[in-house]
């Protein structure tokens, strides 16, 4: 009983000052040392195997590959946010389609992807002009990865500037 009464004594109040000091220090530290996390992720890409034989086995597909060509549009020369002009498989859309826009490419890919043989077997090759803003390549890659399009093989064309294909170079040393 005596013990219990001792506990109720007012002198038992905890001294919080030190703890609050530390807690405030922590708070200030995190306020200063942090950056808000951007919702960021990644898109996978795989680089081709060096010297691996091209597997041109019998595939029951209408075309061997789909080439998406991205060119800097007229407006794009001054404004990197302007959409590039798009060619699919070297051919732009017919006069009826909204040729050359990303929206057109999206609908075209969606149409092609209805055929699962296309989706699984036909590689897409993205061939972008060197001066094109990087965001449009990512945009196109993202288009190919959309759940209702879902092309599995997406590659990038080698640049034509480096005349010998880099895959053929043997690393010195």
């Amino acid at each position, binding site marked *: 009983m005596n013990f219990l009464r001792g506990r109720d004594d007012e002198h038992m109040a905890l001294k919080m000052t030190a703890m*609050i000091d530390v807690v405030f220090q922590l708070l200030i530290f995190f306020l200063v040392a942090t*950056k808000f996390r951007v919702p960021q992720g990644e898109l996978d890409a795989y*680089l*081709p195997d*060096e010297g691996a034989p091209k597997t041109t086995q019998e595939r029951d597909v209408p075309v061997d590959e789909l080439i998406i060509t991205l060119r800097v549009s007229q407006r794009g020369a001054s404004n*990197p946010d302007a959409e590039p002009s798009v060619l699919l498989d070297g051919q732009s859309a017919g006069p009826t389609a909204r040729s050359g826009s990303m929206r057109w490419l999206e609908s075209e890919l969606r149409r092609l992807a209805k055929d699962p043989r296309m989706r699984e077997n036909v590689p897409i090759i993205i061939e972008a002009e*060197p001066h094109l803003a990087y965001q449009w390549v*990512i945009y196109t890659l993202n288009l190919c*990865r959309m759940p209702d399009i879902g092309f599995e093989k997406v590659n990038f064309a080698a*640049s034509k500037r480096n005349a010998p294909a880099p895959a053929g170079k043997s690393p010195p040393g």
Partner: protein
Amino acid sequence: MHVTKRFHSEELELNMTPMIDIVFQLIIFFLVVSEIASYDRVENLTLPTASEVKPEPPMPDRLVISVDRDNQIIIDRRVLNIDGVEGYLRVEKKRGGTDGVARRPVLIQGDKYCEWSVVQDIMEKAAPLGFKRLSFSARKEEGG
């Protein structure tokens, strides 16, 4: 005098409990929602947006190559030219494995306005050296 006496009275002790609760809440909030100035971030880099990004898996051995808006290639906070990148990748490859396969996955984080040719050059240096696992960094775009 009366005032001083009241001031010293024990009844005036502040009740700190709710304040400490709130301060702890704040600390937990900042712990969760933030990341401490990260090792692979480059200032002034605006990532392109994409809807289909996957969350970055924790890969401590990953090689981060950044390209900023002025087409400068940055690895480990150092600005390199394309030959420097090739040399760097070659050293990394030697360190990687015995079978000539570079193990480290490569993450390219390019500014949305950098030129594609810079990224293309990096890829063309990396591919023959055996860096196969490559991914591009992008900001998650809400919706599609």
